């Protein structure tokens, strides 16, 4: 509760949270808010600029860009959040294994983490998506699987510190199982840095998805993410700049909001946390 209050005092973080809330609401209520059917094509009206009926203009096939962006918000935010959650889960599992069991398990996991941290994430993701084939699920899973290392390291450190503490020894002596120990004593102690990391990670993922779209490996037609609409706009950057402008701004806004929220949460929760998530 105290942290929440502190967070609320953080004006920028509050602004970030509000923007994100708004974006999520837009995404959730997209079917009611969209002025047009996002899949409705009017090829003869391709590339028209903003008008009353199409506030953000029309894309090459005459589809309503605003409506596509509202539905695209679902995909962009979902990719961001789910990839964040996947990497969190993988990170928690790996970090727990390493910290809890120690020994060669620790060695193996941490070496693997080091390998993953050394190969630039974008290269890894770009190569894997190119290889497996672009689709919503591939993008999601690969981004998720490639950014677990930060979480694992934080968790491992936390567990190593906690393992020394007397109450853990005590719980062990009473015969608590591994999982119980972990969920009861370890995780509650480190959820705050993890959540900050997820928030910052989501911002990163949204940008990463748009970079993938640039290479043609992002979300594919007829679906759209902000990144893929932006990438479509790149072909018409000179002739119809409105196509790239709006999704570009949307991405910027969302990433900014996640960054602000993450920063604010870090200040509020744990001022000492090193910026591990990026």
């Amino acid at each position, binding site marked *: 509760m105290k942290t929440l209050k502190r967070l609320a005092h953080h004006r920028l973080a509050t602004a970030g949270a509000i923007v994100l809330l708004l974006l999520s609401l837009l995404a959730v209520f997209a079917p009611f808010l969209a002025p047009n059917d996002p899949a409705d094509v009017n090829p003869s009206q391709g590339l028209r600029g903003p008008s009353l009926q199409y506030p953000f203009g029309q894309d090459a096939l005459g589809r309503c860009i605003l409506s596509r962006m509202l539905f695209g918000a679902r995909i962009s935010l979902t990719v961001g959040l789910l990839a964040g959650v996947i990497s969190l889960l993988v990170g928690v599992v790996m970090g727990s294994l390493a910290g809890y069991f120690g020994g060669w398990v620790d060695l193996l996991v941490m*070496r*693997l983490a*080091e*390998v993953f941290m*050394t*190969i*630039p*994430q*974008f*290269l*890894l993701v*770009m*190569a*894997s998506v*190119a*290889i*497996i*084939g672009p689709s919503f699920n591939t993008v999601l899973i690969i981004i998720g699987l490639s950014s677990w290392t930060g979480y694992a390291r934080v968790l491992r450190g936390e567990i190593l510190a906690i393992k020394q503490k007397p109450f853990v020894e005590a719980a062990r002596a009473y015969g608590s199982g591994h999982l119980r120990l972990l969920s009861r004593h370890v995780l509650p102690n480190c959820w705050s840095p993890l959540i900050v990391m997820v928030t910052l990670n989501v*911002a990163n993922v949204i*940008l990463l998805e*748009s*970079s993938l779209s*640039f*290479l043609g490996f992002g979300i594919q037609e007829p679906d759209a993410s902000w*990144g893929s609409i*932006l*990438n479509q706009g*790149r072909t018409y*950057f*000179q002739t119809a*700049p409105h196509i*790239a402008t709006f999704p*570009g701004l949307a*991405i*910027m*806004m969302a*990433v*900014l909001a996640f*960054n*602000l929220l993450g920063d604010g949460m870090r200040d509020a929760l744990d001022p000492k946390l090193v*910026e591990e998530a*990026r």
Partner: protein
Amino acid sequence: MLKYIVKRVLLAIPLILGISLIVFGLMHLAPGDPVRMLAGREAPAEVVAAIRAEWGFDKPFFSQYLLWLGRAIRLDFGKSIATNLPVSFLIQSRLPYTLKLNFWATLLGLTIAFPLGVMAAAKRGTWVDYCSSALALVGMSMPSFWLSMVLIIVVSVKLDLLPTSGTGSWLNYILPATALGFSWAAGLMRMIRTSVLEVLKEDYVRTARAKGLRERAVLVRHALRNALIPIITVLGTWLAFMVVGTVIVETIFAWPGLGRLLTTALLQRDFFLVQAIILMISVAVVAANLLVDLMYAWVDPRVRLE
């Protein structure tokens, strides 16, 4: 110190092996057949078979890996499947361009980030702080290809100040270096600001102030110097950061560098080339991290004992 260096270097070896295995394995999961890409759609079966045998694609995975690793150690990365040219030649011809571009992007980033970061910290809570922080946040949130296109349209086409793309004179460096350096600078600036702020809270800074030193002297002589230490870490992530930008910026600005080579190679499934580039960049990252660690150890002797 020497012992520490040797230990760190030895630890890097399994790391590099792990990276090479992942990089090699990754390309082999690919459903696309590189030989078909090489030979083209119209190639007859015996040509395909000949190429497959020549490149060793018919051998089992581990012998392919060992074959490749053995040659990679001698810096022989084989030939590009798409052009039949030696991979080392292709990389060599691109590397100077990428290095030059990155040098200017880094220089640009540093010249933006340092003064702004320090100033933002020194004048915390003023409009200087807000403006530069806002700039940093925007810089970090912009997709780099969007920034690149906006730069071309505005600076090159609308204002007609600089060339759109390609190499040639020094003017050709400005736009891609800006596109590449800007978001890195944004992150760096924030890091510098935080770091300087933290140092300013320290006792010795307070003492210096109490001694009656002028604010500027406090900042330069005490705060900045100590704030530099955590910044070394950020410099370590520099390379990884530049890689992403390089791939995109080089393609848009028609820059003949490694990033663009990698993009084309990936689309053509030019196995050996992709492997070599990713491996090379990763080894560079290992080297950069090693350097950062050693710098740390040199600056702060406690690290060595860990």
